[in-house]
């Protein structure tokens, strides 16, 4: 509903503009043109401010050590040897990338399915105590992670999962309140008749959820998936407390180890740190460009519905 409104106002505003561009320039008041140019110039300035650090990082990773801080944005000469040197000093780097992929995919898929299951229950079923339970769920969203962190660590440790990848994603099997809240909104938007028809046909509730509700909320599910993919990829805290064995590190934890590495961060071999930073970041940039629409929509909806 909110998006419809956006689309309408957006269209209403852009139509006259396009019309104006088509007509002779002289018909647009000069002041409007000038102010528009100023806005665009300002935005370009800020864009450079936001994007330049990335470009700089990539450029630094392609420079010989002595020139990391040189002003040239296109390295001269371009050297690729920093990457092989990084792998030589930190042979586990590819393993860390693999661990990150596994953990992030597991974390994202488990939390999407489990949160959708729970969200559907809150949206579809009418049962005694529903509002109270949903209130509990909303309240639990406010709880800062540090309060439960120590016992959670002790629980996984007692179960024998210390120094394994399991604690990094398995908590996601039990749904996440924030995503339940988000997905419930979307399930509530589905017309109830859709399900009543299926009930007459004798479809079980589980099949109803999986074959009717899930496909219809795909965009929202993708939002949850990409959000969690990024969250798991970025997380440093859990790898820091659960992992000892360097072979199990994720990229985020590994990058921290690179910063701490006496031969890299310690020796101020910044071009190697830059290379490690690039490898850690690029997959998220790719995910962003693939799922851009979903990221932006997801953030915008959480903002307007929160």
């Amino acid at each position, binding site marked *: 509903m909110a998006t419809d*409104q*956006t689309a309408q*106002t957006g269209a209403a*505003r*852009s139509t006259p*503009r396009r019309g104006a561009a088509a007509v002779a320039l002289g018909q647009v008041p000069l002041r409007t043109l000038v*102010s*528009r140019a100023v*806005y*665009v110039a*300002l*935005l370009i300035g*800020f*864009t450079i401010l*936001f*994007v330049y*650090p990335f470009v*700089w990082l990539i450029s*630094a990773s392609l420079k010989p050590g002595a020139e990391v801080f040189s*002003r040239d944005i296109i390295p001269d000469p371009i050297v690729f040897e920093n990457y092989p040197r990084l792998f030589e000093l930190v042979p586990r780097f590819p393993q860390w990338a693999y661990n990150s992929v596994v953990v992030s995919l597991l974390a994202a898929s488990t939390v999407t399915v489990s949160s959708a299951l729970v969200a559907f229950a*809150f949206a579809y*079923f*009418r*049962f*005694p105590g529903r509002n109270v*339970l949903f209130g509990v*769920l909303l309240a639990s969203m*406010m*709880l*800062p992670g*540090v*309060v439960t*962190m*120590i*016992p959670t660590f*002790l*629980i996984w*440790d007692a179960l024998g999962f210390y120094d394994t990848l399991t604690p990094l994603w398995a*908590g996601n099997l*039990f*749904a996440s309140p924030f995503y339940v809240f988000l997905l419930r909104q979307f399930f509530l938007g589905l017309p109830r008749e859709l399900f009543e028809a299926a009930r007459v046909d004798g479809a079980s509730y589980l099949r109803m959820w999986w074959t009717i509700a899930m496909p219809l909320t795909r965009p929202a599910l993708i939002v949850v998936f990409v959000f969690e993919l*990024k969250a798991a990829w970025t997380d*440093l805290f859990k790898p820091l407390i659960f992992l000892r064995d360097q072979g199990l590190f994720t990229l985020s934890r590994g*990058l921290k180890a690179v*910063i701490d590495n006496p031969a890299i961060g310690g020796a*101020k071999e910044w071009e190697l*740190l*830059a290379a490690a930073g690039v490898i*850690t*970041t690029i997959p998220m*940039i790719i995910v*962003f460009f693939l799922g*851009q629409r979903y990221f*932006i929509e997801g*953030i*915008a909806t*959480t*903002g*307007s519905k*929160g």
Partner: protein
Amino acid sequence: MTAQADHLPGKGRWSALQRRELGWALLFLAPWIFGFIVFTAGPMLWSFYLSFTNYDPLVESVDFLGLRNYERVLDDRRVHQSLINTVFVAVLYVPGTIVVGLFLASLLNRVGRAAGFFRTAFYLPNMTPAVAVGALFLLLLNGQQGLINQSLRGVGLPAPFWLEEGPWVKPGIVLMLLWSIGGTVVIYFAALRNVPVEQYEASRLDGATAWQQFLHITIPHISGAIFFTLIINTIYALQLFTEIYAMFFGQQQAQSAAAQSEALFYVVYLFQQAFQNFNMGYASAMAWLLFVVIVAITIIQVRVSRRFVYYEGE
């Protein structure tokens, strides 16, 4: 008694269908209910209990200390230091995101279709993993040759040692945090697009200036979004950890002691106590104090905002 109760009219509120659905609902809810008990409610009670003990996973015996942990936390000079640092950064960062975020979102709102491109560019830093942000800013903030100091010197401004000089460490951190302002901008921009255009047109006929329009039309309409980001960003700022830890803590020897005390944030110190010194009872008391502070701040913000926030439906 139960047999009789079944015949009371009040019980009839839930039909047979609803009671049958309850079974299914519980099945669907099972993952969350289990997770809530095992990973939220249970740990909450447990950590509350731990906060009254000297629990250390490496030591067999556990003593009950009463309120002693809390007294020690309130007397701990490093807690004071970390609180000062945390509040300092929050006070700069939270209003900073609102002002800069509103400015950028308003710019986006004035350039029509091109906004999509710029919005993407602004959001890009949010995709950078936090540790990579820390690594990047170790390089950008480098005192001798970092990009930021090169630029400052280029325009003739003083170039401080952001990573080493005490008073410049926190401003450097705020700078780093503001780089990831994209999420807030996206939220404000979405809110701005929902402000009814007719209101601007009507007020223009009444001779309102752009500033008056911003103050009396824009701000009230997006106050919900501002309030949301205020709460979210405050909670985030009070729990800063990853970027800071990546830059200043861990095994690296490079960082000066001065920088480490300037960059000691509350959750960083809590982490050190819990997982480096294994003072888990003490750390639990710290966690509960933070929880109380966050709840108190949120309640104050909700109370105050109730006067200013305008919701569409009301």
